[in-house]
């Protein structure tokens, strides 16, 4: 046998070997397991092994990539997944800014993207490009309306805002300004700070001088702690509200006594043992148990967002398979259509009812009011 024909044979063998993997459904997962948003990205990366392994008899392969919180790296990873790996869907990235930067590529290649990010800007207002994006977190205004309801009930008339100088904080400030004016709550101070600031005394004093009935802190992760401890130590006595950004166990550890009595709205994952029996509770409990047995610690809510993305795909894939084969543009388009018609799907975060207008799809079942009592999360009744 000549050398040439040997190569030909080898080529044939290789091509037959790789055929079955084409039938697989490929899903890319981009998370920020290093860099500034690592707090969000690590539980998301850790959740990948817990995602559904197959749907309608087809196995699902996950291709994890780390974008180290850098938007440029996100774009690179995104293009790699689309052009080289030819994935059928992408879960990620972790950061709001990172997600905004890749929407156009998702739309251009026609790849459904399930973004576990905080900002509603990735799906609102709905455009031709954003049709390809689905968001597995509660929209800010859903969480905000729960907080504003509570404020109205407890007679809060004036509110101080302090948020991070990033898309998260800015969107909250936008949402709150609108909701507050609708509910005749006056915003008397609106301050911002950076996550890495070593001191927030100036902003706290300004809030203190405006003497609002309540203060809302809008910051993701552990950066939500410093404003609160500073406010307490400068002598602020009013009620302090936090967003779902603070819904993490390190918040309790870092905050200690200063975060006692905080009120926040978030998914029920924080207060699983106290939550009423719902399908979501069962799913979330199982997810938390599985995560714990793998990593020996509790997952942060962010991990649940990625897990839900997996559930959405698992539900949508059987429908999409009826129209096309995985790995084709038709399959991706069918997958997008199937995702868009998701109804009453229970995930760890709540119940999804996705419509062409609402690509986040949560209702009140996606949030509960939580307070901190004796250093523990406590479900707030009513």
């Amino acid at each position, binding site marked *: 046998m000549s050398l040439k024909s040997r190569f030909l044979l080898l080529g044939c063998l290789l091509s037959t070997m790789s055929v079955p993997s084409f039938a697989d459904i490929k899903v890319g997962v981009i998370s920020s397991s290093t860099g500034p948003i690592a707090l969000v990205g690590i539980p998301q990366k850790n959740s990948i092994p817990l995602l559904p392994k197959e749907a309608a008899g087809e196995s699902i392969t996950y291709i994890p990539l780390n974008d180290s919180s850098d938007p440029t790296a996100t774009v690179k990873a995104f293009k790699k997944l689309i052009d080289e790996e030819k994935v059928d869907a992408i879960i990620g990235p972790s950061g709001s800014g990172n997600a905004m930067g890749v929407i156009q590529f998702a739309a251009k290649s026609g790849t459904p993207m399930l973004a576990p990010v905080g900002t509603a800007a990735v799906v609102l207002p709905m455009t031709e490009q954003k049709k390809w994006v689905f968001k597995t977190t509660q929209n800010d205004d859903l969480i905000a309306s729960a907080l504003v309801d509570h404020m109205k009930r407890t007679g809060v008339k004036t509110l101080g805002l302090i948020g991070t100088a990033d898309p998260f904080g800015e969107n909250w400030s936008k949402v709150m300004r609108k909701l507050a004016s609708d509910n005749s709550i006056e915003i008397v101070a609106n301050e911002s700070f950076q996550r890495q600031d070593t001191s927030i*005394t100036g902003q706290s004093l300004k809030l203190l*001088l405006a003497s609002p009935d309540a203060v809302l802190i809008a910051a993701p992760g552990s950066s939500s702690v*410093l404003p609160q401890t500073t406010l307490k130590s400068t002598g602020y006595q009013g009620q302090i509200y936090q967003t779902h950004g603070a819904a993490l166990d390190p918040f309790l550890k870092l905050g200690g006594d200063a975060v006692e009595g905080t009120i926040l709205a978030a998914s029920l994952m924080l207060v699983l043992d106290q939550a009423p029996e719902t399908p979501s509770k069962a799913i979330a409990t199982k997810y938390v148990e599985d995560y714990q047995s793998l990593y020996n610690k509790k997952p942060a809510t962010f991990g649940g967002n990625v897990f839900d993305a997996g559930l959405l795909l698992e539900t949508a894939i059987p429908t999409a398979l009826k129209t096309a084969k995985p790995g084709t543009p038709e399959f991706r388009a069918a997958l997008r259509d199937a995702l868009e018609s998701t109804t009453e799907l229970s995930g760890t975060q709540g119940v999804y009812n996705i419509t062409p207008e609402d690509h986040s799809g949560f209702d009140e079942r996606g949030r509960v009011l939580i307070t901190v009592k004796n250093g523990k999360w406590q479900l707030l009744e009513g």
Partner: protein
Amino acid sequence: MNVQVAALLGQDGLTNGAIYALLSLSILLVFTVTRILLIPLGEFVTFGALTMAAIQTGKPLALEWLLATLMLIDIALDVYSRRDRTVSRKQYQMIALKAAYLAVVLFVTQTFTLSELPMLAQSILTLCLIVPMGPIMYRLFFQPLADAAPLVLLIVSIAVHVAMVGIGLLLFGPEGGHTKPFSNSMLQISNIFIKSQALWVIFSALFLILALFFAFERTLYGKALRAAAVNQVGARLLGISPVFAGKATFALAAFIGCASGILIAPITTLYYDSGFVISLKGFVGAIIGGLASYPIAAFGAVVVGLIEAFSMFWASSYKEIIVFTLIIPFLIWRSMKASHVEDE
């Protein structure tokens, strides 16, 4: 804006300013002696703070293993570099001393319940864990290219910084940490409250600055370092080892960085990547001092702290911009004033 607010802001500015002053002094010191801009200085701050936090919350430390690895590499290099020369008894003693130090530190971290130790002991342990990393860092990354151009040294310095941030994430996780205050009491002068932790920071910083001053003015080793800073070749001719000078300044910088971290950890939340911005503000101070004058650098750093505190109050969104814009007029002024000397 009333007196109380101004007093609180001033207090805050002075506290941060004191830390920036300490850092700007160590940046200056390292730069004048070794021509290295010590970008990883901020990592010593965060490592110090986060190690204290880990000790207090009873998390298992991982830092001692990093120290152990680095020290073993260091010892191995010592042995290797002397492979075909006769080794003097003194060098043997040095190696034995390093191994013994490592053994003691490992013994302490493994046997005691660290979270129950008194705070002073925790601080000392943190310093013992981190300060040796300074000279080892010099030995491993900078000593082999001590004669390289400042630009090369700067690039290596940035590389070390990036590596240390990554290691910080690995060792301490992304959550950030803060520690218990040394004391919780408040001092009241008429109607102005002063936090005792702020006083701790300010007085410790003052003490350290004075100690540095005396060490450099009055002791032989201090004078040797100053000589190495003024003229490296001359100092070498007089028998001052540049390796010793480099290691000593790095040890001092690591000590100051780590101590700053321990001091501010109770006031703020520090993350594994907070160090860079903190040391950058110390760097602004050092620039104001023209990378040459210690008193002006310290003074400049305190001014940076104060401006930061007040701009935080008036225009919180523009705080960083205001602080870092400060550097421009000083650079212009400096470059107009200075006579230009071509660098090598």
